[in-house]
């Protein structure tokens, strides 16, 4: 039961509603205007530009290594800059560092929580970061001494108010970028655990992020359950570009090697390419027969191939320019949860809920 409105309050409330409605219409007008501006510069489609490019041949990609050792679903993995070592994390809380070339397990850490959804290798090769349902991102310095207990030197860096969905080191071991189910991303100083910058703007869980490989290196892109992919300026914390064309959660975002575009993979079973300079979506990679979501995407070294790990246990390889699928790979026995191309592009690694990781080349 509301208290009886005085005449003044009534007019005030009406005024507020009018301004709200006014803002809403203004918002819609601006949005349409933005679309118009973008469309004005849209003078050619990607596949038209790609007509002059020669087609790709047949690919023979096989599983070259199968890494067995996790006791439960593999959720995330990352490559070391040495091009052969990887770190992987799983549902049972285990984080393992492997030399994928020899398939030896080099280090293993047991996290105090389950569902370790994010892990990253430090650029120096001397540490790994991981986190998940503990809402934190912790850094473990690695050791050459096999008997050393890594958990003893663990450093808690990031603190979110909900699960950690992704983490990445910047170009040094000293800073970590994280994204979380609480809808924010954040940049942290590793040594002190200090929050350097936080990024607000997503309306729902943020599921993935990727740092720009550009010479300035000050931006990153994030994707979330609000179907938006946002590009952020690390210096100011502002969202500088936003794209909302997917029909469902965006599970993975990855920059094109030149830094001028990025790809996204979503539960709506499509991968899309967004051009940052033209400020629009320029390609959709989909097929009618593919209806299961994409969990993870990555580009080959030149950017010509886009690899996608799907929830129907397969990997689809797309020709980025022509928009066609060039190959489909089978092998995993449960959904592919993570996919990364190695730093020198010689192979890519997939992690799956079937407890294994595979290296393909």
């Amino acid at each position: 039961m509301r208290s009886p409105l005085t005449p003044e309050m009534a007019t005030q409330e009406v005024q507020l509603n009018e301004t709200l409605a006014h803002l809403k219409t203004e918002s819609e007008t601006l949005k349409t205007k933005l679309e118009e501006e973008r469309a004005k510069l849209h003078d050619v489609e990607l596949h038209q530009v790609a007509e002059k490019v020669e087609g790709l041949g047949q690919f023979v990609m096989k599983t070259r290594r199968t890494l067995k050792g996790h006791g439960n679903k593999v959720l995330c993995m990352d490559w070391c800059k040495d091009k052969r070592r990887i770190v992987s994390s799983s549902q049972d809380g285990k984080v393992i560092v492997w030399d994928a070339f020899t398939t030896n397990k080099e280090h293993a850490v047991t996290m105090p929580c389950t569902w370790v959804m994010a892990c990253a290798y430090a650029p120096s090769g001397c540490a790994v970061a991981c986190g998940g349902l503990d809402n934190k991102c912790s850094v473990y310095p690695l050791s050459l001494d096999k008997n050393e207990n890594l958990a003893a030197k663990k450093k808690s860096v990031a603190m979110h108010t909900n699960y950690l969905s992704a983490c990445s080191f910047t170009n040094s071991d000293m800073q970590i970028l994280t994204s979380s189910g609480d809808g924010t991303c954040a940049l942290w100083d590793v040594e002190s655990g200090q929050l350097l910058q936080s990024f607000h703007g997503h309306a729902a869980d943020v599921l993935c992020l990727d740092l720009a490989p550009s010479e300035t290196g000050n931006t990153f892109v994030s994707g979330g359950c609000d179907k938006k992919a946002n590009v952020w300026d690390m210096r100011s914390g502002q969202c500088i570009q936003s794209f909302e064309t997917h029909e469902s959660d965006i599970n993975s975002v990855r920059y094109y090697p030149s830094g001028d575009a990025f790809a996204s993979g979503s539960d709506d079973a499509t991968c899309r390419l967004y051009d940052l300079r033209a400020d629009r979506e320029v390609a959709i990679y989909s097929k009618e027969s593919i209806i299961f979501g994409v969990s993870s995407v990555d580009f080959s070294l030149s950017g010509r191939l886009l690899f996608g790990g799907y929830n129907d246990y397969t990997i689809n390889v797309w020709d980025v320019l022509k928009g066609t699928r060039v190959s489909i790979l089978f092998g995993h026995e449960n959904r592919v949860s993570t996919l990364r191309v190695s730093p020198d592009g010689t192979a890519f690694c997939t992690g799956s809920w079937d407890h294994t990781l595979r290296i393909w080349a």
Partner: protein
Amino acid sequence: MTIRTARQDRVQHFRPRTHCLKKLEAMVVEMQDSKSGVKGSEQKLNVTTIPHVISGKDVIAWITNKMKNTTEDAQAFGTMLVAYGYIYPLQNHRKLVMCNDDSLYRFQTPYFWPTQKWFAEDIDYAIYLAKRNIRKKGMLEPYEQAHYNHLHEWLNHKWDFIVMQATEQYKAGKERKKPDRVVFDCQERAYWIVNRPPRRTHSALDVGPERLIDPNIDEKISFDQYRRMNMFYQQAIMRSKVKSSVSLGALVKYITTYKNHDPFLAPCLPSNPWQTDNDSYWTLNMRRVDVPTKMRVERWSFSLFELLSDLRGRDDFKIFLKKEFSGENLAFWEAAEELKLGTASSMSTKAETIFKTFLAPGAPRWINIDGRTMGLTVKGLDHPHRYVLEAAQTHVFLLMKKDTFFRYLKSPVYKDIQKKAQSPEAHNFSPAQLEQNAQSRSPGIHPMILWQQEEEEKAKAAAASAPVDVKAMMSKIDRKK
């Protein structure tokens, strides 16, 4: 059938990975069409005759025809239909895969489809397990027994209700005809295998942690949020954009430039370590090789960014800069990078050193940047933060990019290294040799050891190139005298 309390429509779109269910359902309905769907037949299974049984290979053939794709593709799709519980296997009921042979399957009744009966509640599971226990003690499998014990503990306050429901269902079941009962039991069992999968079963309804924020709730967008959104739109409209033909052209150009360097598109020499188990490719491209490969040297010419990102290339660039006596730009750029990426605590000391070395009037390695940038930077250094050198760093980078970089490519230093660079022969291993390689994969050098070496080298180089403090040198000489 069974009395259920009306459940709130959970509207599954905030449960992850359920966007595909609509399309799946449409497909399953088509598959069951009496004329154009998959042909079923009656099959005898353990004395009972079960109607509408389909074989795996018929399903796969139907999918291949419908979607016009390969058998493998269709098999993967079929497996997903089983993993989501739309089709269930009659024989190997714990393995949720579609086999391309005479394995028998049935369509699940819509009542048990994931969209209809989404939230498989623990209380329903408890009723189901209790019912099976009533029917025949000791019938539960070990994993089911474990679930049962757990549920008995935490649902204990509702156990009377559970047992009552279970008994009701059991009695109702006994009154059905045997074939109907067998069919219903199979359906129910299949439903629970998908929703409470035993350890080695891969069910697609195993979705993981739920999403926290439901993006479909009609959020009341506040006044402030609208204002922020509108500001964002206005900025976005004003931001300079590039024509599609230009930006897409740039993407194509990048691909064409790097085409021969992409191991998936062109063979890497001598061979791809993952394919031949021989890691020469990595050894030849290590950080500190005397003679880099031709491909690597070529890549340095693609952009200044490539040249600086490859530390071996950066070394070569430094040799060139030393000859030109213009090493201070790159040194400043490196120092600025270190400031940006360093620890928060080290920033003020670093900022001070950089000021003294590069920016102060009369500094030993004074960089030549325009007055305005210099003014802004020096002012910013009063309160140093991570990005205080951003403007100066960009300016210096552009200078190098537009001038120094191109002179480097035309210089004798670069031409020299191009000539010296090696082009390894492609490996041609016989199957026996490949076997041998696989047995003796080299462990390489641990990145931590390489990192320590790198740090030592950097420290040495820094000490060697540090500006000489003349006063200290003089006083040292005086003291010696």
